[in-house]
């Protein structure tokens, strides 16, 4: 039975990864799950300098979901390399590093730093965080800027580049095509949806940042459609994500056109989810007599 898939030049032993920002730097989960069973570890977004993040409260639970406005708190490139890379580089599975910046120049510089580090599996460009005023989302919602930032990173590194798309666009197709044209090897679809909750007792927003990004099972059907639309528009592989809790959820994304998937918010409440998805995927393939997971990719039948 083959479960392995390719994301650009990177081979994953199975198509199940984790979503950036929901898995820390991997090490936090090491006592609870065997990280070496994953397709890849994807770390929280890193820019050049350490980032303090937003004020609290930073998350609020909503029906079948979570709204967050963490603000990309992180140790910066040097802090990451010092504190977390010694652990990650010993893993048998690839590490995908999610990077961001406030300018095109900074994105490229972070890409260059990780290119020089050696041993990194791939870079995921976060052009779509809804909780950062400068950088983040506006790169992902402006086709021209998106092309520039992907192009600059493409020049800065030979590592596989994955562009993490914003869902906050009328039509994802031109954005997917722009990232592909600028040299992205793959797309992650997608980041969280802009959202808000209000405490009716205090008449205050539930988050200090007022609004945040919605994730969790409530967004899954929207994410599946975005993957399906983008898959029709580009030839590069797609990593699908949004509310995955089970193998059945993951298989939907594959059938919509994703080559791999990422488990996100579920890591917060059930750390075993990614491993359960892998086990369930094997079981489904066995049940259906399917020898290669790639048979699922884009196999949804929309004709009559």
């Amino acid at each position: 039975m083959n479960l392995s898939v390719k994301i650009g030049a990177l081979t994953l032993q199975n198509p199940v990864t984790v979503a950036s920002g929901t898995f820390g730097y991997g090490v936090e989960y090491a006592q609870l799950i065997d990280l070496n069973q994953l397709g890849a570890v994807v770390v929280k977004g890193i820019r050049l300098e350490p980032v303090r993040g937003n004020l609290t409260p930073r998350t609020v639970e909503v029906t079948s979901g979570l709204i967050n406005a963490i603000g990309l708190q992180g140790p910066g490139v040097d802090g990451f390399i010092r504190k977390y890379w010694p652990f990650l580089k010993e893993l048998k599975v690839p590490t995908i590093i999610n990077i961001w910046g406030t300018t095109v120049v900074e994105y490229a510089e972070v890409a260059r730093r990780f290119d020089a580090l050696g041993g990194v599996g791939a870079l995921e460009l976060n052009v779509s965080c809804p909780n950062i005023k400068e950088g983040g989302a506006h790169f992902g919602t402006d086709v021209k800027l998106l092309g520039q930032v992907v192009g600059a990173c493409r020049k800065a590194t030979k590592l596989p580049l994955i562009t993490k798309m914003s869902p906050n666009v009328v039509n994802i197709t031109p954005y997917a095509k722009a990232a592909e044209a600028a040299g992205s090897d793959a797309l992650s679809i997608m980041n969280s949806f802009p959202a808000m909750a209000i405490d009716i007792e205090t008449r205050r927003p539930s988050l200090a940042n007022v609004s945040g990004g919605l994730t969790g099972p409530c967004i899954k059907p929207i994410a599946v459609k975005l993957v399906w639309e983008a898959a029709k528009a580009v030839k590069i592989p797609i990593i699908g994500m949004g509310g995955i809790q089970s193998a059945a959820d993951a298989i939907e994304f594959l059938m919509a056109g994703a080559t791999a998937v990422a488990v996100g918010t579920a890591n917060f409440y059930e750390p075993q989810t990614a491993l359960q998805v892998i086990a369930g995927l094997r079981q489904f393939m066995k049940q259906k007599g399917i020898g290669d997971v790639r048979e699922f990719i884009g196999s949804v039948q929309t004709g009559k």
Partner: protein
Amino acid sequence: MVEQTVQIVSNERDTDLYFRLIARAPQIAPLVQPGQFAHVRILPLREALLRRPFSIFQVSGETLSILYKTIGKGTEVLSRMRPGEELSMIGPLGHGFTVPRPKGETPLLVAGGYGMAALYLLAQRSPQKGIVLVGGRRRVDILCEEEFHALGWEVRVTTEDGSHGETGLVTQALLTELKRPTPGRKLFACGPTPMLKAVGRLAAEFDLPAELSLDEHMSCGIGVCLTCVVPIKAGDSWEYQRTCTDGPVFDSREVAWEAVE
């Protein structure tokens, strides 16, 4: 840190909105240190996804207990669960209290309401017995007083409405106690943030060490989501640290109180 399915042994109302739950958690219970917590997934909750953190109250062999207040949909559903039903639990989690060394400091505990539960194991495992000051709004907010008596500790109660013990705030009782010069004391506190802030201020005023258990909203409980952060001094500024893994217990002098929201 272990994740396991645990079985409810008992789940009984204590007073008013407070419940005591005992669970059989053979892999977690023996590892628990004072001040640590368990992160609990209440399986019958369908649309509320996140785990709920609870301070661990007592430990006995393969069982552990929590003392909780029904304050939202999670704890309400939990309060209706019966013996034999199961929960998913990750624990023990967090950086707890420093148990005093034999012939070391004399602990002076300060609790607000059910924050008292988080201090029980510390009292039980401390070689020196001390005083616990506990405050609440009403009589029903004062919990586990007898358990502390049973350990041979002195319990001083304050209630805001005067229905039990002295009338007033626990921090007023603390001030009275601190004015009595006694060498080698150390404060340990758990309760609402305004109370902890007042304890921190008094500790500074009397130049006493204080360990405070901070209570913040959590999502993951294991250090990845960065929901439960609190401002901790770093150089001449401060940085956000995680209540779930860097805490919940912090040295009062390290907290950047001016930035606490």
